[in-house]
C-alpha cells in the first residue's frame, strides 16, 4: 500500500478550464481523484466530461488552471510524457498492427525490448490469449474493447482514463464489460477515471461519481449518497427518476412541514439542501420506489405519520419485477410509482383512485429556484 502511494498519487485539477473561442466547454473546475479509486465523470453529451478527461491525458491544452499528478505539475507535459493512458471511445486500435503489437506499442516506444511475457500476461488478464496474432478488424467489438484496455494497462499508468469505453457495445455485453472492468481495476489497483453518459454504468462501477452539467460539476459523491441525497434538480432527475413536488414551508423545526398539493408533507430538516425559512418555496423530492400505493378504499389502513398524496392512476406498465404507475394528483400531474410485484392489488388499474404514501425520512428537499425538469430530458437524449 505504501509502495503504491509513492508510485502513484492523486489526480488534482485546480481551476482547470477550457474555452474554444467564445464557447466554454469546461468552467473553472477543482477536482481531486484519490489514488486507486474508480472515479466516474457522468453527464449528458456536451457537458465537458470528455474535455476534462482529455486535459488529464494532455490531448487537450487547458485554457487556465493546473493539472497535478501525485503532487507534480504536469500541465505542460505532452501526452507522451505523462504516466497516464487512455482507452478511447472508438478504441483507436492500430489497424496495421496485430493484437500483440498493439498491446506492445507503449512498451516498445519506451525502449523495452523483451515484451513477450508482459504482453502474454496482459492478454491473459483480458482473456484474449488466443487472439495474439489477429488484426483488430478480425475481432468483435467486445474483444476490441478489451484489447484497448490491455494496450493501456500494460504500461502500468498511474491513472487509466476511459472515454465512454462501453458506448459502442450492446446492452448485454456492456453489463458484462462493466463487471470485467471493475474486476480488472480491483486486481491492478490503478486509479480509473471513467467518462460516461450512462448513470447506471457510473453507479455500478465507480466509487465516486462527479455529475457534470454545462461545464460544471453539479455534485460529487459515492453513488448511493448521490442517489439518496441529490442537491440539485439536475442530479435528482439525471441519476434515476425523482418525483419533485413544489411546496411552501409552513413550519420549521426538527422536521419541516410543507404545504403542497392541498395537503401537508413533512421531511427531516437535515435532508433539505435549500434555505429553510418559514414561508419559503421548496421542491420536495421522493424516489418512485420509495412510494407505496394503496387503493382509496384502504386509506384508513395507512400508518400515521406517513406522507400522503391522493390521486388517480393514469397509466400502469407491468415490467416483471415491478409495476410502474403514473399517478395524477394535485401535487403533480405525473408522479411515478414503482411497486414490487409481491402481492398485486387487482384494483390498481388506470382510473383507480389511490393514496400514495411514504416514510417522511425518505423525502429530500431542493431549492425551488431551479428548473424542475433539469436533467430529466437529457437522459433520453443521451440514450
Amino acid at each position, binding site marked *: 500500500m505504501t509502495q503504491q502511494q509513492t508510485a502513484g498519487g492523486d489526480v488534482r485539477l485546480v481551476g482547470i478550464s477550457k474555452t474554444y473561442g467564445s464557447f466554454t466547454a469546461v468552467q473553472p473546475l477543482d477536482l481531486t481523484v484519490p489514488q486507486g479509486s474508480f472515479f466516474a465523470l457522468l453527464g449528458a453529451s456536451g457537458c465537458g466530461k470528455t474535455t476534462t478527461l482529455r486535459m488529464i*491525458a*494532455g*490531448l487537450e491544452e487547458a485554457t487556465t488552471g493546473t493539472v497535478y499528478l501525485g503532487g507534480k505539475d504536469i500541465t505542460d507535459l*505532452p*501526452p*507522451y*510524457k505523462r504516466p*497516464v*493512458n*487512455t482507452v*478511447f*471511445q*472508438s478504441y*483507436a*486500435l*492500430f*489497424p*496495421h498492427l*496485430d493484437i500483440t503489437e498493439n498491446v506492445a*506499442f*507503449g512498451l516498445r*516506444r*519506451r525502449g523495452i525490448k523483451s515484451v513477450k511475457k508482459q504482453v502474454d500476461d496482459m492478454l491473459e488478464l483480458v482473456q484474449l490469449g488466443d487472439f495474439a*496474432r*489477429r*488484426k483488430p478488424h*478480425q475481432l468483435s467489438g467486445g474483444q476490441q474493447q478489451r484489447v484497448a484496455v490491455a*494496450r*493501456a494497462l500494460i*504500461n502500468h499508468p498511474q491513472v487509466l482514463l476511459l472515454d465512454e469505453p462501453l458506448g459502442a457495445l450492446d446492452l448485454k455485453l456492456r453489463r458484462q464489460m462493466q463487471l470485467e472492468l471493475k474486476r480488472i481495476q480491483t486486481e491492478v489497483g490503478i486509479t480509473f477515471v471513467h467518462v460516461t453518459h450512462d448513470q447506471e454504468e457510473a453507479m455500478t462501477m465507480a466509487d465516486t461519481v462527479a455529475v457534470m452539467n454545462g461545464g460544471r460539476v453539479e455534485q460529487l459523491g459515492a453513488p448511493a449518497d448521490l442517489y439518496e441525497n441529490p442537491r440539485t434538480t439536475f442530479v435528482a432527475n439525471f441519476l434515476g427518476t425523482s418525483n419533485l413536488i413544489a411546496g411552501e414551508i409552513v413550519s420549521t423545526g426538527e422536521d419541516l412541514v410543507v404545504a403542497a398539493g392541498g395537503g401537508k408533507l413533512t421531511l427531516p430538516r437535515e435532508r433539505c439542501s435549500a434555505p429553510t425559512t418559514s414561508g419559503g418555496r421548496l421542491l420536495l423530492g421522493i424516489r418512485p420506489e420509495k412510494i407505496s400505493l394503496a387503493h382509496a378504499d384502504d386509506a384508513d389502513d395507512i400508518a400515521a405519520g406517513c406522507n400522503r398524496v391522493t390521486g388517480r392512476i393514469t397509466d400502469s406498465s407491468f415490467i416483471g419485477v415491478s409495476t410502474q404507475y403514473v399517478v395524477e394528483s394535485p401535487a403533480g400531474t405525473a408522479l411515478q410509482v414503482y411497486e414490487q410485484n409481491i402481492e398485486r392489488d387487482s384494483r390498481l388499474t388506470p382510473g383507480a383512485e389511490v393514496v400514495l404514501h411514504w416514510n417522511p425520512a425518505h423525502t429530500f428537499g431542493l431549492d425551488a429556484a431551479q428548473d424542475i425538469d433539469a436533467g430529466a430530458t437529457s437522459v433520453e437524449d443521451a440514450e
Partner: protein
Amino acid sequence: MPVLRWIRRNLIVIAGLLTLAYMILPNIVVMVFSFNKPNGRFNYAWQRFSLDAWKDPCGVADLCGSLSLSLQIAFWATLGATALGTAVAFALVRYRFRARGAISSLIFLPMAMPEVVMAASLLTLFLNMGAQLGFWTVLIAHLMFCLSFVVTAVKARVMSMDPRLEEAARDLYAGPVQTFVRVTLPIAAPGIAAGALLAFALSFDDFIITNFNAGSTVTFPMFVWGSAQRGTPVQINVIGTAMFIIAVTMVLVGQLIASRRKSNARN
C-alpha cells in the same frame, strides 16, 4: 432454344471477357511483334518468329540511353512529387489555414489544363527565364504535373484516417516523429503508394510536355515517336513487353504477399 438460354445465363461473363480482351489485345500485339523479324524498317507486318531483338535490346542507337534517361526522370519525379504531395495532402486535410480551399482547387489545375497548352506555356516560361532546356526542365515539368495526382491520391486516404489513432500513439509514449513513422505513415501507405505508382507511370509515359521542354535531350517516348517517322525497331516492342511483364509481376507478387499475410493472420 438452348443456345439463347446459355447466352442469357452467361451474359455477364461474356461481357466481362470481351471487355478484358478489348483491353489486353493491344498489349498482346506489342508482345507478339517483339518476336517478329520484319523485312523492312517498319515492324507493322508479321514475317517470322525471331529472338534477335530480345538478344540485343540495346542494338538500336540511342534507344537504351533514352530509356535510362526516362527511368531517371521518372524516378526523381516520383520521389519528389510523392514527398511533396504527401506533405501537401496532410496539410490540406489536417490543418485549417487561410486560402486552404483555394489551394485545394488550384492543385487540380494541372490535371484540368489541356496538356499541350501547358507544355507550350511552360516552354515560354523556361525561355523567358533563360533556362537551359534539358534534363532539369523536363524534371521540373514532370514534378509539377505528378504532384497533382499524388495529392489527390494521398488526400483521399488521409481523409479516411481516424485522427484518434495518432492521439492514441501520442498517449502511448510515441513522440511526434515516432507517431508519424509508426502510425501515420503505415496507415497512409496505400494512398502514398498509389500516388507514387501513378506519378511514375505518368512521368515515364509523358510525351507532349517533355517534347516541348526537352531541348536536345531525348526521352524514351520521344525516341519512339522519332523512330516511328523513320522506321520502328523491334527493340521498342521488347522494351514495352519487358515493362509490361515487370509491372504485372509486381502486382501479382504484391497480391500474393497480401493474401498470404491475410491467411497468416487468420491462423
